């Protein structure tokens, strides 16, 4: 069961997660698209796993398919954590 989390907490988990996956930390900003960052589908799956482990929020394939930017991911996780 997800607990309420702040936007900052979610941003940190996603930023740290993408950095761990090898993406340049300075480029991981809310406006950055996953396409610009060249994030592949398996990395997005693993990012979803990181979000689930760290924040208890589950993201399915339909959720991941809708994400375009880092900001989209942050907003979705915040919304799901609060529901």
């Amino acid at each position, binding site marked *: 069961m997800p607990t309420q989390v702040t936007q900052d907490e979610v941003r940190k988990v996603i930023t740290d997660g993408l950095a761990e996956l090898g993406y340049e930390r300075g480029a991981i900003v809310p406006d950055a698209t996953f396409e610009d960052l060249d994030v592949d589908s*398996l990395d997005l799956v*693993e990012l*979803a*796993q*990181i979000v*689930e*482990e760290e924040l208890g929020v589950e993201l399915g394939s339909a959720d991941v398919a809708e994400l375009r930017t880092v900001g989209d991911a942050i907003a979705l996780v915040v919304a799901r954590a609060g529901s």
Partner: protein
Amino acid sequence: MADARPQGCALVTGAARGIGAAAARSLAAAGWPVGVNYRADADGASAVAAAIEEAGGQAVALEGDVRDARAVDSVFGRLEERFGRVLVLVNNAGTRADGLSPQLSDEEWSAVIETNLSAAFRTTRRALGPMLRARFGRIVNVASVVGPRANAGQANYAASKAGLIGFTRTVAVEVARRGVTVNAVAPGFVQTRLTEGVGDGLVAAIPARRTGTPEEVAACIAFLASPEASYVTGATLTVDGGLSA
């Protein structure tokens, strides 16, 4: 445990008897704590777990019908709580409901597809997240020589096993770059309860002139689950005494 192996455990579905039980014993002997999953045969699964512990290994019997996604979650949750993340998954649970195609019922078709193929998808889906994070995973699907090879009266079984091989290959290429391997073993005629009454006259057609044992299949599963098999993925290892050669 070998140095190349991260901390974690193994789950074998349908492990109360036969190939599953033998696989559980082999994996435990190799150092993995093992979840011995069963659907209905609690006594069998408990006996397998007890034998593993008597031999110095670690095991726990876990009830759960892997056709049900919620039961899959429950089995994984209980096993993770006991022994940590599942890094080896053996999809062995299987069933038969034989009949010629014009007379196979919807129920006979679905039961076999759900147990032999769909359940493997559900357990694999659940297992892959932690395996990806661990950068280590071994998934072994117990298929059959029936699948690539015809066997009249087993269209449902053949479809499920052929499907399992296709599933094995595709998942393998999806996750290979994370150190997760996905392979299948394809047993031929192995004496288990599942093959009772099946073609006693078949032995003459087997080049080895005998049926196989669950232990011989389990040895192959244990190899594919080992750190040493790290460059084997998307493969099907046939264990049939030469029947398919």
